């Protein structure tokens, strides 16, 4: 019989592995605690003691002190540092002292709210006092909704529900809004980009409704480590915030291992596929009974890995013990997986960053990341999944060939010493703002002279009145159309409405298996696309673009599909401009037209191209903000047109991967497009634009740091071990381009360094 290896055995094996590029051990740390503060209700102290909490961590004590002084604050806490007590303690205390006190908890997902509800209710049970803490979301049965609206002391929900259900029906929530003393925003760092910009506006609406009912709640936010928690919390809530970051929680020893797959083709610098390496490493852990979580960056990679891992187990009953977890699954499916993990019925899980959030999934010893998750903050969040309650934990970052991954893995100092990225939002994005002015006007008429949390809205109200959406009478703008505005505003996706995925494999049991935003659907749900769901392959048979329905049927093929998107750009207005030595950078408004063109069929194991087809979908157009770098004609002349083009394409590839080093965003939030002759300046130009109408502040930040960005690109290409260019630096089609790109970058004479 095979002897099971212990974690120590496996660590020893890894120590000898030549592919381990860097080994970082984070030593364990003892807790820093203080006794319970004087003012805390003795019943609460008693209840906490019964649950084994005899003192507070330093940050929890600070949080209590801030809340009792009525200060808004943001607590920055790593995974498993007792962050929930930062808000549960002051809030339960306030409710015990005055039962009419109300609190609203916002979690980014339903799953998190469910999880926190169980935790809170266990604590309440110890108190021996009835306190109503309930989740209120799409799954809440109609029968108890009314009770929660009237008597719920702590209402746990998500921003989407607040936006589309609670605020538009505020008259049914009078007792909540009249007595609202606390608003908790958990996982603050998830509210960034488009989603964060929407949520900031939902909070503006919330504050407006509270003011109407005469309450002024304290805002309490918790966040994972990001570079700008205080600024971000202030931007999101519109309130000055106290920063609490003196973490007093203990920590287990963690081994953070950077693993670089071996080079299999020296000249082209092609490395072994990260997915294959992860498959083997995951197998090693799982076979030895080590509970493991595997992260992958995209839905596609999750499904491919799951497919691999499940085939390892086909002969046994363990097939079900390895599951996928990602967005796009239905809530019931996700709930079941979370439960399986908690109860130990599921040993391994392959996840997208959906599980980055603090859902309690029990004890995991190992965490494997397939590729760098795109931001330092995400990487730490994912790493926090391992070692929640163990003595030792191991985290493996397996690099892909992408320039960003190779940069990170070859610069461990960058990763371990640099501040994580900034979270950026732009609540004043006109499209987002106008959407929420609509919703706000629906909730309460705007009075002339009234502001929307400081923003003058007269022009917008007048515009909406001209559009026959509002009606001005007396001194107020009233909602005057039969539409329900919140229904037309989705907080989560750039597109207005999602494409629903319908499985018609069994004619008698046609069912919806997921949904996807419109922009992603162009390249993932076109006809003939292979769509993966829980490791099963589906082929899209028909995509009804008008009705937003994709009809799929289960298939069993040995390839996946990959689609191309053709993009056209036009500059509408220049807002900012500056000169560099041989280039100019600018920032402004652009029109982007995107069209899915063709797709390729790619065989799983070999990555061979085994076929292709054209995609017949209409062009989608968005207006957005963009930064761009226009290079002087002189440079083009010096290089000659073909070389200039090669340099441009290669540089765009590098910039696409360098951008996420500086702004916290999902890869699809920023798009980089090279144009050899941009229509507005006739020069070779690279555009970096926000993939959302009106922009969300990412490209503006990139404009401010063009030099730093170009330098990072230069370092990436310089340090790449390939000879003439490879997918890890200048891109897949860039063979021979490396010297050209390097020469081009050197010619620019850019000063400055990226290390902040």
């Amino acid at each position, binding site marked *: 019989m095979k002897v099971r290896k212990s974690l120590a055995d496996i660590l020893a094996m890894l120590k000898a592995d030549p592919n381990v590029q860097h080994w970082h051990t984070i030593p364990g740390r003892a807790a820093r605690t203080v006794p319970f503060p004087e003012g805390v209700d003795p019943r609460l102290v008693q209840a906490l003691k019964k649950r084994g909490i005899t003192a507070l961590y330093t940050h929890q004590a600070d949080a209590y002190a801030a809340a009792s002084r009525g200060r808004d604050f943001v607590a920055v806490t790593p995974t498993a540092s007792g962050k929930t007590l930062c808000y549960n303690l002051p809030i339960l205390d306030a409710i015990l002292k005055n039962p009419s006190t109300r609190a609203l908890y916002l979690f980014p997902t339903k799953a998190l709210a469910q999880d926190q509800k169980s935790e809170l209710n266990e604590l309440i049970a110890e108190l021996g006092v009835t306190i109503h803490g309930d989740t209120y979301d799409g799954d809440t049965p109609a029968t108890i909704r009314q009770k929660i609206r009237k008597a719920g002391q702590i209402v746990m929900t998500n921003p989407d529900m607040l936006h589309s259900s609670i605020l*538009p*029906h*505020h*008259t*049914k929530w*009078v007792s909540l809004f009249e007595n609202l003393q606390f608003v908790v925003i958990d996982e603050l760092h998830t509210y960034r980009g488009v989603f964060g910009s929407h949520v900031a506006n939902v909070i503006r609406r919330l504050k407006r409704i509270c003011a109407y009912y005469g309450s002024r709640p304290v805002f309490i936010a918790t966040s994972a480590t990001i570079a700008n928690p205080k600024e971000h919390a202030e931007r999101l809530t519109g309130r000055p915030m106290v920063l609490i970051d003196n973490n007093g929680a203990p920590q287990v020893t963690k081994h953070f291992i950077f693993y670089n797959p071996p080079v299999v083709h020296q000249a082209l610098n092609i490395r072994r596929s990260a997915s294959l390496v992860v498959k083997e490493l995951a197998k090693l852990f799982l076979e030895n009974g080590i509970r493991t979580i595997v992260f992958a960056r995209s839905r596609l990679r999750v499904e491919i890995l799951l497919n691999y891992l499940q085939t390892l187990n086909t002969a046994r009953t363990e097939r079900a013990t390895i599951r996928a977890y990602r967005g796009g699954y239905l809530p019931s499916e996700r709930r079941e997986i979370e439960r399986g993990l908690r109860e130990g019925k599921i040993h391994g899980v392959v996840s997208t960053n959906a599980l980055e959030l603090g859902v309690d999934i029990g004890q995991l010893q190992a965490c494997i990341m397939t590729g760098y998750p795109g931001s330092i903050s995400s990487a730490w969040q994912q790493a926090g999944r391992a070692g929640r309650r163990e003595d030792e934990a191991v985290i493996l970052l397996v690099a892909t060939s992408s320039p960003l991954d190779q940069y990170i893995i070859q610069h461990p100092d960058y990763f371990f010493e640099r501040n994580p990225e900034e979270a950026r939002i732009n609540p004043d994005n*006109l*499209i987002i703002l*106008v*959407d929420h002015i*609509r919703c706000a*006007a*629906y*909730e*309460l*008429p705007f009075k002339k002279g009234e502001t929307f949390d400081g923003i003058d809205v007269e*022009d*917008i109200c007048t*515009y909406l009145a*001209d*559009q*026959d*959406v509002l*009606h*001005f*009478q*007396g*001194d*107020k703008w*009233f*909602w*005057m*159309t*039969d*539409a*329900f*505005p*919140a*229904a*037309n*505003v989705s907080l989560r996706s750039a597109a*207005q409405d999602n494409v629903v995925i319908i499985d018609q494999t*069994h004619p*008698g*049991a046609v069912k919806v298996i997921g949904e996807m935003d419109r922009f992603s659907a162009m390249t993932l749900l076109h006809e003939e696309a292979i769509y993966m769901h829980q490791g099963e392959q589906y082929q899209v048979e028909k995509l009804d673009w008008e009705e937003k329905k994709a009809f799929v049927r289960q298939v069993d093929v040995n390839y996946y599909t990959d689609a191309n998107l053709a993009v056209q750009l036009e500059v*509408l*207005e220049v*807002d900012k401009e500056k000169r560099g030595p041989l280039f100019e950078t600018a920032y402004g*408004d652009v029109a982007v037209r995107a069209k899915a063109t063709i797709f390729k069929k790619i065989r799983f194991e070999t990555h061979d191209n085994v076929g292709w087809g054209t995609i017949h979908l209409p062009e989608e157009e*968005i*207006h957005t903000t963009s930064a761009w770098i226009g290079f002087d004609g002189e440079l083009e002349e010096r290089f000659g047109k073909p070389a200039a083009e090669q340099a441009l394409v290669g540089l765009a590839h590098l910039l696409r991967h360098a951008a996420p080093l500086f702004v916290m965003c999902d890869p699809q939030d920023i798009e980089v497009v090279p144009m050899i002759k941009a229509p507005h300046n006739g020069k070779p130009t690279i555009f970096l634009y926000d993939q959302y*109408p*009106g922009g969300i502040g990412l490209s503006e930040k990139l404009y401010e740091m063009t030099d730093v960005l170009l330098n990072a690109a230069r370092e990436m290409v310089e340090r790449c071990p390939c000879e003439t260019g490879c997918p890890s630096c200048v891109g897949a089609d860039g063979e021979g381009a490396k010297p050209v790109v390097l020469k081009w970058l050197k010619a620019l004479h850019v000063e400055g360094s990226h290390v902040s």
Partner: protein
Amino acid sequence: MSLKKQLERYKRHLARPAENGTPSEPAGPIRPTPADPHLTEAMQEAAERLEAEVRTFEGEAILVKEQTIPLDQYHGRRPLNDIFEAVAMWQHDPEPHPLSTRGLAAEDLLFFDTETTGLSSGAGHMIFLLGCGAIRGDRLQLTQYFLPGPGNETAFYYHFLTDVKALSNLVTYNGKAFDWPRVKTRVQFVRDAVPKLPAFGHFDLLHAARRLWKHRLESMRLSAVEETVLGFKRSGDIPGHMAPFLYFEFLKRPKASLIEGIFRHNADDIKTLVALYSHLSRLIHGNGVPLSGDEAFEIARWFAALRRYDRAIALLESLDPDEPGVERAGVHGLLAECYKKSGATDKALETYLYMVEHGLARGVSDYVEIAKMFEHHYKAYESALSFTERALDRLERETALPPDKYEKERWALEQRRGRLLARLGQKIAGEDGA
């Protein structure tokens, strides 16, 4: 870039579906001047044209239109004064029923319908017309409260709530889910200035209509029901869904012609409520109204749901199962269930057996019912086993059943079968031992 310019640039991105579509031409000088809190001259003219009275409260004004309609007027096939007979019928029926007006007089009922600016129940949609009908002597007294602009809701609810006082006997069509929650929402905004909302009680005729005619009618809209069931045909009616748009137009230029149709539509709705309540009451009591087979069946089902099995059985036993529109299996099945629930087990078993022997079984469950009765009531395990096996047999022929349902059903039947076999085993062992 200026905000105005940006608004222009992003216009296309700013458009949202399901709003008014293309805006109409700017109304120009006829748009009421915002500075003027009182009704403009145009509004006064509109009031006269509508024969409505202007009532004010705290600087706000509303229009109130009163009219009386003789009850001997026909509404469809029957006169409105059927209402007296309908209310009288309930006085002799002591058992509870959602439509029962026992202990009330026709004059106590308030027939109630609203017109709103949108279908959602959120804070941004308003009621702009409240219509109330009450029986007064030989007349129907109809009062309509009209909101001439969104800033006049205090006056609107002040006058309405001051006038009506009691709201405990509303008769509505979908009022429970639609009209009443909206009244509550709107009153919330002006609650400090208007009388408190009184306790509310309700006869919702949509619920009844759905029970009786959902198979027969494609739409349960009041206009569809009144035409088919009451034989009332409206002339020149404006469809209900157009009302908000006409109202929005009226806000921009207060011309009576824009909203006259809405007043008429609302008045017709209220008259239909009176006639429909009468008609439903007569149907339920089987008084002087020819009952079609499907109506009788649905009324019986309703009684069964209310646990009034005697009434359900009486209706079903008198039903001719061969009448067109009557589903024989359904009638027998319901009858069997009523027998069983009222304790007439022999009759229930007899009916179920009749069904399976005459090809009227509706599915596996009818076999299971027989098996259950044999097992638990008659302790006849062999017969129970035989019908369990027939149920299994039947299950195999249910090809339309989704796989998960099939598995569940199959598992349950196998359990039953196993249990019965065990019992039979014990019995045989006992007999052998004896």
